[in-house]
């Protein structure tokens, strides 16, 4: 199954789990409110994988991503009384998860860490077209460095849309902005990424184009 299909199903509250138990998210929320903890377990199982992966995109650390995902579910549980059942549960969960993660990173940055992505190894330039797996591994590091230079509001949209394959409407619901704003930010984010990537790759960028071009 394609990643974006999974993302869509997750946000619509109809994941693979649903095929076995077609209980809607809203129904589960009502049951949790009525005191059924197993219903909350079902919600956790339904969303934990995707939530962990989304958070990991921002923090790039397994243990930290697990902690933040757990914290997200605790916040969700504590605030379930305020959840409006006419809204969709998925975007609300990811909204809380992403906000929590961005808050964590902002605080960390304020405390003195120079980078939002502390796991990045020391600077070095690589050739993205290289066949050497070690060098190819470094492409991820390079991409992370470039992402780090993009302002948070654009980077968040880029990560959610292009790395996690949420639709623009879903990103809009997660970051609580209009869809038109998200499209504008996405275009800006992609253009900024392209400029910074080109700058960072230098001459290594051009030969790749010749190879890929007509």
């Amino acid at each position, binding site marked *: 199954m394609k990643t974006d299909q999974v993302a869509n199903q997750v946000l619509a509250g109809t994941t693979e789990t649903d095929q076995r138990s077609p209980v809607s998210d809203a129904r589960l929320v009502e049951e949790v409110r009525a005191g059924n903890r197993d219903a909350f377990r079902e919600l956790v199982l339904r969303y934990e994988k995707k939530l962990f*992966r989304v958070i990991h995109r921002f923090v790039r650390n397994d243990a930290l991503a697990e902690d933040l995902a757990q914290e997200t579910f605790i916040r969700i549980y504590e605030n379930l009384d305020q959840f409006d059942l006419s809204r969709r549960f998925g975007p609300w969960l990811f909204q809380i998860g992403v906000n929590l993660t961005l808050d964590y990173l902002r605080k960390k940055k304020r405390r003195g860490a120079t980078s939002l992505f502390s796991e990045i190894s020391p600077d070095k330039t690589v050739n993205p077209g290289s066949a050497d797996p070690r060098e190819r591994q470094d*492409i991820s590091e390079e991409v992370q460095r470039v992402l780090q230079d993009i302002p948070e509001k654009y980077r968040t949209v880029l990560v959610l849309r292009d790395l996690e394959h949420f639709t623009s409407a879903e990103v809009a619901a997660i970051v609580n902005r209009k869809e038109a704003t998200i499209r504008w930010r996405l275009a800006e984010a992609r253009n900024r990424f392209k400029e910074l990537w080109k700058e960072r790759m230098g001459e290594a960028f051009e030969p790749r184009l010749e190879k890929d071009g007509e």
Partner: protein
Amino acid sequence: MIMSCHCAKNRKRLALLVDHDSAGKLPEDIRRILANCPTCREHYEHLCAAMDSLQQAGEKEAVFLEKSLWSELAHRLPDSQPRPSRYSLWRQQIVPIFSVTAACLALLLVFVAERPAEKRIYRTAINRSTSSLPLPSISVDYTYAPFRDSADSRSQQAPLSIQSLHQTHEDLFLRETSPGLTQDFPDPLESQVREILRQRRLLEMLE
């Protein structure tokens, strides 16, 4: 760059079309731009290459949760059940009703306030003419009445003649067309609307 190409403007659109390339879904006008403008073409190719690298890195970085969070999470959840609070129930049920009512009232106010001034005066004058204006008492000219000789009691009571009716209409016409006259009979709704409009103008001036 071609003479008619708005390259800077195209950058945003091209950035949103990166996904569509492989599926051959590029709109015809964009295909034409890419075929004719080297600047736009280069920008688009660089964009595709950069996004390709981003995707590659994204796939490589994708992680999988190996163990469910539930076992740990179950111990960390608070004991109390998250029941809907009074406030959230109030917010979810009362607020929409209140909002709709307030919106209707606001619409009504705007509708009344937007009516042209002349029409308002006309309407209020007519209303007054039927209820509060006393008809002038003018002596009846029975010579015109065709039922003069009849013993019909209704004809005896009729206080109006053609002239008196003309007089009444003239009074009304004067009241309708002379704003000064209408001020003698202040309409409560009209004065409220005037006050709202005055306050709105004041607010606009302050802003």
